[in-house]
Structures are given as structure tokens and as C-alpha cells.
């Protein structure tokens, strides 16, 4: 299989789906002439023209709301937010209009829209530009939240999201855009199920998006090499719906669990997963579930402080040793 970047995988998914269905358009800041702030839409203006690839003014509530209105009448918009830090400006449109339209109308409307862009830290971007805000969406009934960690997942899940008749918040990662992975040529779709990124026997490490490749897998290697602890790394890939069955299956095998998320610890998605697993797998847990998060602070710019704040493989190693009572 050819190796391509996460960015190229997303670009292929967009190009293939837009080719397939002319009711899909891509709108967002700098998606056309500038080819995307992170170049995910490279070449799409040339391929589909400015009728379908549209640069919007810098008005997140306005153009996300415009996309929601287009979905409201049956189109299939893909709206790019330059980052999810800015999507906070559109959150009212997403929570009060998008997530509720089908229910409030007694099921008269489907809202087939994908709102996508990068989340998480990009590296020395400071407090306002480095947030992992998936909990704002996972909390809300009526929308789905997908966060791929590899090029393969990124392409297959974006295509699934674009064909989904429910609204999907699709959160990418600036630091993953350049990472490479094997992606089959041609058509494939992926389900919203959890994926075991590495099999193991002693402990289950749950991580998604950048945390899979940046923290969980490296930590698993270290732990196996240095501590002889065999780690199973499970990536939910979709946070809403969330495939608890696969997570519980893994815990029934390992009896131990560590959750790694880039977001802050309070009222986070990881906290919810921990609460649910503590309830549903209570009898299988030989140790409490330990969570790794970025520190509970606005992310500082200073390189040393940012590094201290964000989750690292060593944090995961420590946590795993703790749940294995090896520290």
C-alpha cells in the first residue's frame, strides 16, 4: 500500500466524495485561493471551481450557520473551521440549531453536514490557539464526533462522515497533517468503531487523535522493552458514538486501564469514559483507571512550560506502572 500523509488522505476523501456527489460543497476561511490554512484543500478549487470550493469571510457563526441552513434544505456541506478554537464562535449555531433541528421538528429534517478542522496544540501557539475542545461537542445529543489518528482512519472516516445523514463534527490535528501511513488506493469506508492499534495483555491504554501516535504507542514500546508490561492500545476513533464494547472487551482481558487525552482534565471526554468503564467494568478492574491530561492551565507559550503541560510518553509510562502497582 502507498504511504501518504494524513493531509493527503483527507484531501483524497474530499476530492473523491465531491466527485461522487455534486450536492457537496466545501466552504471555509482560505479553503480556495490559499488552498487551506493547512493545505488540506490543496487543488480542490482547481478541480471543482469556485462554485463548490468557497472562501468565506472570517465570520465563524455566519458561515457555519450558512452551512447548517444549506443542510437544512438537503445539501451536504463540508464546512472547514480553520481550527476548533475559532469554532467556539459558531457553537450556538451547532448546539442550538444543528443538534436540535431534527428533534425539535419531530424528525422532519435530516442535517447531513460535516464540520471539520484541526483541534489540539500545534506547537508554541499560545493559550488561545492550542485547545482540545472535543468535550464541547461530545456532551451534546444530536451530533456525532469523530477524531481519526492515522491517515488510513482519516480517509475512511471522513468519507463515512460525509455520507452520514447525521451531522458530524470531524476533528483533525495540526500536528498529524504531515504524519505518514499506508492508505489503500481507491474507495473504502470505515465504521465509527474503536480500533485496537496494538494488542497487549497487561493493561489497556485508551487514546485518540494525536495521543495515539505521540503518547500511547511510544509508551507501549518503552513499557514492553523496559518493564516487560504488555500494553493494548485502543483508539475509539469516534467519541460520539463511542464503541464501549471494544473498550470493555479489552479491559476484561487486561483488568487495567489508562486513558490518555490531550484535553484538560475537568469534565472531559476521558473523565466520562473513565466513569462509564468504572461502572460497566467494575468487577474486571484490578486497579482504578488513571487518566493523563494536559495540565489544568491555559497552555503557556514558553517552550519548556508547554512541554511540561502536554501529555508525554513518560507520563503514560508512569501511569501504567501505577495501575500495574509497579511504582
Amino acid at each position: 500500500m502507498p504511504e501518504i500523509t494524513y493531509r493527503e488522505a483527507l484531501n483524497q476523501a474530499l476530492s473523491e466524495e465531491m466527485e461522487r456527489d455534486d450536492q457537496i460543497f466545501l466552504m471555509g476561511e482560505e479553503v480556495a485561493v490559499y488552498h487551506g490554512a493547512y493545505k488540506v484543500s490543496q487543488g480542490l478549487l482547481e478541480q471543482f471551481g469556485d462554485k463548490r470550493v468557497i472562501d468565506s469571510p472570517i465570520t465563524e457563526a455566519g458561515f457555519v450557520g450558512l452551512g447548517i441552513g444549506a443542510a437544512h434544505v438537503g445539501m451536504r456541506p463540508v464546512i472547514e473551521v480553520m481550527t476548533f478554537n475559532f469554532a467556539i464562535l459558531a457553537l450556538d449555531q451547532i448546539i442550538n440549531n444543528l443538534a436540535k433541528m431534527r428533534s425539535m421538528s419531530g424528525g422532519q429534517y435530516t442535517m447531513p453536514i460535516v464540520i471539520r478542522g484541526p483541534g489540539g496544540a500545534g506547537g508554541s501557539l499560545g493559550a488561545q490557539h492550542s485547545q482540545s475542545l472535543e468535550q464541547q461537542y461530545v456532551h451534546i445529543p444530536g451530533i456525532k464526533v469523530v477524531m481519526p489518528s492515522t491517515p488510513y482512519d482519516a480517509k475512511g472516516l471522513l468519507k463515512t462522515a460525509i455520507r452520514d445523514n447525521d451531522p458530524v463534527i470531524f476533528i483533525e490535528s495540526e500536528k498529524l497533517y504531515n504524519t505518514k501511513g499506508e492508505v489503500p488506493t481507491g474507495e473504502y469506508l470505515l465504521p465509527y468503531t474503536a480500533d485496537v492499534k496494538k494488542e497487549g495483555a497487561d493493561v489497556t491504554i485508551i487514546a485518540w487523535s494525536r495521543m495515539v501516535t505521540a503518547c500511547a504507542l511510544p509508551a507501549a514500546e518503552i513499557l514492553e522493552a523496559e518493564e516487560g508490561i504488555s500494553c493494548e492500545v485502543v483508539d475509539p476513533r469516534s467519541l460520539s458514538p463511542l464503541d464501549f464494547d471494544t473498550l470493555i472487551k479489552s479491559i476484561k482481558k487486561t483488568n487495567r486501564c489508562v486513558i490518555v487525552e490531550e484535553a484538560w482534565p475537568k469534565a472531559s471526554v476521558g473523565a466520562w469514559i473513565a466513569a462509564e468503564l468504572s461502572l460497566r467494568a467494575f468487577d474486571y478492574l484490578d486497579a482504578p483507571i488513571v487518566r493523563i491530561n494536559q495540565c489544568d492551565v491555559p497552555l503557556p507559550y514558553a517552550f519548556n512550560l508547554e512541554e511540561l503541560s502536554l501529555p508525554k510518553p513518560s507520563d503514560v509510562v508512569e501511569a501504567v506502572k501505577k495501575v500495574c502497582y509497579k511504582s
Partner: protein
Amino acid sequence: MASSAKSSAKSTAKNVKAEEPKTETSSSCSTPIVPKYDAATYNGEKYRNIAKKLLKKDDIKKLYRDMLLCRRFEERCAQMYQMRKIQGFCHLYIGQEAVAVGTIAALQPKDLIFQTYRDHAHALLKGISARECFAELFGKATGCSKGKGGSMHFFKAETGMMGGNGIVGGHVPMATGAAFASRYNDKKQVSVCYMGEAAVNQGVFHESLNMASLWKLPCVYITENNLYGMGTAVERASAEDQLYKRTKDAYRIPGIRCDGMDVLEMYGIMYEAAERARNGEGPTFLEAITYRYRGHSMSDPATTYRNKDEVSVWQRRDPMARLQADYPELLTEALINAMDEECKAEVQDAIKFAEESPFPDASELWTDIYLDYPGYPGPGQKG
């Protein structure tokens, strides 16, 4: 503070003003509501003439009957609310009927309308039966939104009634997006976005109008300026309280003020604006000066911020009386009485229907949220 002191000379003035009718409304019923100092830009006759040219006798009767139906429908809403058959927020439109009736009559069936929470009349006029409306207000399964929406959220996809939206200004980008879709697929379908005058201050209104003008979208934005947002008079909330002035130089969107108590004028002005939109000439912004006779919602006695005199001045320009004055031979007392009986009967039948309809089945709690969501509802979730 000095500033507030100054500017609230304004606000205070306003509160005092409420003691006697406001300048622009103290004039007798015959003169247009639109402030004199506007005479230059005001062109009511032009739009009245468009209406008179296009409307047949039966259309005129229909306009009157529509206003009457809305009025009777909402009078019973108030009554049912007192009886606790309707709960939560309930915003009555009584007094403003000419705006919805005139403008919606000027649209084509395929056109779409987006309204606020004050949506009973718009729903009745855009293809939702009185039965479906009352059933919705009672929270019954037979309601236009299956009882799940309530007073603020009336929807009917097949007739283009796009709600019923509760967030002030929140529906403006959606209406713009529907217009975008119409243009994208060359449907010649017009989106009409109604809003209160207070919504014009919300940021999304500006973001939406900028895009609508930039891309020449077939959207008509219309603010029903009933002079108050809850208890706040328009001049205490809007630095420029002549709202129609706010779009031309800012967005290159023509803004036109009109008499929201004159159903003919409302018909003519919407007819023209919708034509512009359909012909690809872009959006229009309309400001209809109107008045709600009742409080903001059922819980508002409307006492602190305005007084009875002001209300009665406006009631003396009631849109139904106005239309009758325009067509005395056609709209005879006999005809009106007959129509009144019909409307009352229609509303009575709707209430009976709503009464007898069942509440949604408990299983409905979990429907109409996702089309496909594996493992939904999650374990531990009731029902």
C-alpha cells in the same frame, strides 16, 4: 455615569415618553405610522398600488380572513394558556398580523420562511393547519412537530415553514444558507427571514447580510419592528433606531421601511423584494413598523415599559379595520361576520382535535435524534 447619564437621558426620556403616546404614533389613524421625518424615503402608496393591481376580490377577502384567523387563533391561545393546556413560553402576535399575512401571500408556495419564536401566525399562513398548531401547543403527537417543538418551534418541511426558532438572531444564518442552496441549485426559491427589531443588533445578522450581499443570495430579510424587545424600546437598544438605514451603506443591501399595519403595503413590498431575489438581484432588507398589543410573552403584563394610551393608539390602526376601510363595499359587515364565524369554528375544531389527540408515546423520547447511532440510547438510559 456621565455617558449613561447622557445617553439615558434618552432612556429616561423614553420611560417618561411612555406616559404619553410617542410622537410617531400620536398622529391620527389615517396618517401613516412611518415617522413623518421619513416621508422622503417612505413610499407606501407605490406598494399599495402593486397590491391593488395584482390582487383580485377573492384575494382581498382571503387577506382579511387570514388576519382574522390568526387573531382568533391567538385569542384562544391566551385562554388555553390560562387553563394550563399550553405551558412554557407563549409569544402572541396579535396586532402584527398584517406583516405575516401580507408578506406570505406575496410568496410562491416553494419559497421558504424562517421565523422567530413568535411563530403561530406564520405557521398558519405557511401551510400548517390550526389543528396541527393547537396540537403542538398542547404537546400532542398530532402536532406539527409531533409535540416535541412547542410554541416556539413550529415546523413543516413540505410547505416551507422552517420554524419557529428560539435564539434571537440564531436563524438568520440558516435562512441565508437556504438561499445559498437555492442559488447553488438554481431553484429560484426565495428564503424569507423574519426577525424582531432587537435581533438586528446580533452579530450573526451582520455576518449573514455580508455573505448574502457578497454572493447575491435570494434572501429577503424582514424585521418586524414592534418598537420593543421585551421591555426595551428600540431607541434604547439600537444606536441607529431607523433600522432600514443600517444595511445600504454597510452591505450594499437596499433597506426599506414600511407600514406594518397595512396588509396591502406589506404584500406589495414583499412581492417586489421576492422578485428581486428570484431574478438574482440579491437580498433586500425590509423594516415593517408594527406593534404587539399583548405583552412579550404570557408572563409579561407589559406595564413597566409602556402604557395603555400607547397601546390604544396602535389599536386604532388595527390592520383589519384598515383593510376594511380600503374595501368597504367588498368587506361588508355581513361578510366579516360570516368569516368570523368560520374562523371561530375552525379554531374551536382545532382545540377539540388537540384535546382529543394523544400525547407522544414514551418511546418517542428516543426518536428523531439520530438516523443511525450504534448503541443508542446507552446503557443506564431509561426507556
